[in-house]
């Protein structure tokens, strides 16, 4: 430490090197204590450094956005910034930087214009100006949110929007692609049903047949990608969501199996337990006005037009 102190007496070129070194030391200290360090701790850990050059180094770190200055009951606290923010690197005025910082914090979930206004305390016009300028510099972008049609959220330009914003693979421009889902649903079922039919020809016992009829979500995914229905690359989670809808349709069953120490989900098509139940083979089963049907009034079994159609 004495050597460092002696070095400070030597020429102005050395001073800069030393200031950098000092800044790194402070940063390392801040990183060590994530709760933040105050001035006293800094002083105690590096007693040889004079307050002036320490202040210089801290200012340097603050402007570069490497650390944050926070107010607490113990006085001022220095905290290392965990995320590698780039607010320091952008050019622009203080407002733009502030807005950029707020948007950056929201990460790929994005933030709404009202939240930015509340957080930044800026006037609407100022905010709009800042946003416009940032947009033109291609630092941020606006993304339409899937939850409500008019909501627009801002996020950094290079980020991929979170699936909660875009709605995942099933949304294009905030429209739910029900036809796409429907086709995938049908194709997944077709694949599993083909397997079930193949398993019926199996001659080596029912257990074997059952195993043949099963398929993991990865196999289904592979089949679907080979079909080339989907323009986008589907993830296994996406296909599992589709398979889940088939389970809710009652056409498919899911079992969990351990394969090579890993839990895999196996799906198989099943026949429904009962054919169309007797009640529904008669017009009364599906009758929309059965609640009104009685002996009196115009809705009755004798005048019933559904019945007439069915019997003729």
């Amino acid at each position: 430490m004495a050597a460092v102190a002696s070095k400070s007496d030597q020429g102005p070129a050395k001073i800069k090197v030393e200031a950098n070194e000092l800044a790194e030391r402070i940063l390392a200290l801040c990183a060590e204590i994530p709760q933040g360090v105050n001035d006293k701790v800094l002083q105690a850990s590096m007693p040889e450094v004079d307050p002036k050059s320490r202040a210089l180094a801290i200012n340097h770190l603050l402007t570069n956005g490497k650390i944050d200055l926070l107010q607490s009951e113990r006085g001022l606290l220095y905290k290392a910034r965990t995320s590698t923010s780039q607010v320091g690197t952008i050019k622009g005025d203080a407002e733009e930087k502030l807005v950029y910082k707020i948007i950056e914090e929201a990460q790929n979930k994005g933030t709404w214009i009202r939240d930015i206004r509340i957080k930044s305390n800026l006037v609407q016009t100022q905010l709009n100006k800042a946003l416009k300028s940032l947009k033109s510099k291609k630092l941020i972008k606006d993304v339409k949110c899937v939850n409500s049609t008019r909501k627009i959220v801002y996020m950094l330009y290079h980020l991929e929007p979170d699936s909660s914003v875009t709605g995942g693979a099933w949304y294009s421009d905030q429209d739910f692609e029900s036809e796409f889902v429907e086709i995938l649903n049908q194709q997944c079922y077709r694949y599993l049903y083909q397997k079930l039919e193949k398993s019926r020809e199996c001659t080596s016992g029912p257990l074997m047949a059952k195993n043949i009829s099963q398929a993991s979500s990865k196999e289904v995914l592979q089949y679907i990608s080979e079909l080339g229905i989907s323009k986008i690359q589907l993830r296994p989670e996406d296909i599992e969501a589709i398979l889940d809808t088939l389970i809710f349709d009652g056409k498919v069953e899911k079992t969990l199996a351990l394969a090579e120490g890993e839990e895999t989900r196996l799906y198989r098509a099943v026949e429904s337990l009962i054919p169309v139940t007797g009640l529904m083979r008669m017009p009364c089963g599906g009758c929309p006005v059965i609640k009104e049907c009685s002996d009196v009034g115009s809705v009755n079994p004798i005048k019933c037009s559904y019945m007439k159609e069915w019997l003729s």
Partner: protein
Amino acid sequence: MSVAKQKLCHLLLDEVFGSRVAKVGRHLAKWEKCFLADLYQLDQPHECLGVLINHGLVTYGRDPRPTPGVQYEISLDQVIQTIRYPRYLYLIKALHGDNAELILEEVLRRGQETLPKIMEKSLNRIELDENLAKTHKQDLEKTFQTLVKEHFLQRAPHVGTNPEVPGSTVPILDETTRFHVPESIESCSSIYWCLNVDRFHVEFRNKILVSTVTRRIDETAGKLMEFILSLSGKKLEASSRHISITEIYANINKCIDLKLRQYKDHYLKVLEEDRTRFIDRVGDEGGGTYVVNFKHIFTVLGSAVVENVVQEKFNSKALRIFRVVRDKLYVEESQIQKLVMIPARETKLMTYQLLENNFIQVQELRKSLSANVVAKSFYLFHVDLNQVARMVQEMCYMSLSNAIIRKNHELQINARLLEKQDRIDSITSNINASEEFVSEEERTQQLEEVQDMLSPAEHDLVKQIRRCGDKLHSSLAQVDETLLVLELFLKL
């Protein structure tokens, strides 16, 4: 006691026993319990009550209150079972032959009857009807013994005095002699026999299960299920007795199905592993012990029926929503939308349609109970399967009533035409049977003349009415099938 059920009962009583009995039945259903004096306003109440009591549709007992007289109570569930009489006959014919059908028919006609009378009536019928094969009395008696041994018939509860209530006359059913035929026919003259409905339902239940397994797995598995069910007992219970694997194997080894013999372990495993849990392994003693948990299986089947109704009444998307709500127990609207992958608007529409038709229910959870606070509430959707099943049951009652009403209506408006057709039919058969005609030509000429009594248009109409009748009849049987599954689900 719902209106739909009462209506159906009235119609059924009218069909089986006639309008007088139906009126008494309706009166009893309306007031739940009646004194005989309450029925005096009706036509021949004594005889009607007698008929109903004989068929086990009305029970009676002395009111504990100090009022004079005996109170009568009708059992609507039993009345609805009269719709299954044709199925009972068909089943017994398939299992034990024509003689058994004859005996059962006599029992059904009387409600309860002594053995000598049954024999006498059956033999009379055999003599009179040319189509029936001639049989000896011994054979008939043997069939009767088998029916009792198989618990299809039982001793009717005889009226006696209940020692607990002095001075009362109540039906007493002796458990030990319930399925026992005395050796000497002479002592039989005072013993009345009646139907054991539960035993028939056991057969129907087994049939449903076998067809379900066949549909779900394959025919061989269905056969195995049949073997297991044949070991499961003759009573309608929530769960079968414990069945050891050796018993099942012994049965399998008797059969000729090679596939079943080869893969018997595999098939047992598949039955056990199926989501419906056709059999449950309960222990390892003796190589494994199984039970058939009917309660669970019929819960699954009952919900399958309800699902089927949802799918047919609405569409498959509604079914998806229904199943999501059922699987997740309590679920919010937004969660449903995420899981079903149907456009939000459509999901909302279907969800509320299901709610409107009482297939799903909504539960409100309030953060605060006070009314003046703008309290946040959660609305959770859920399915009460019991309630929905009961609702579907009501739908069945209504459909059955409607089918009967429509059938009666069709017959009534075309009564004259049908009478004419009947007359023609009887004349035709007379001509065919008579030997007066000299030549075949003359006979055919006569036949043609008779046929011309109806115009071609009328012929077509008769055909159409017959077709309508058949269709309504078969749908009665089909709806009854649905009703049976739901009944078993709610009862077990």
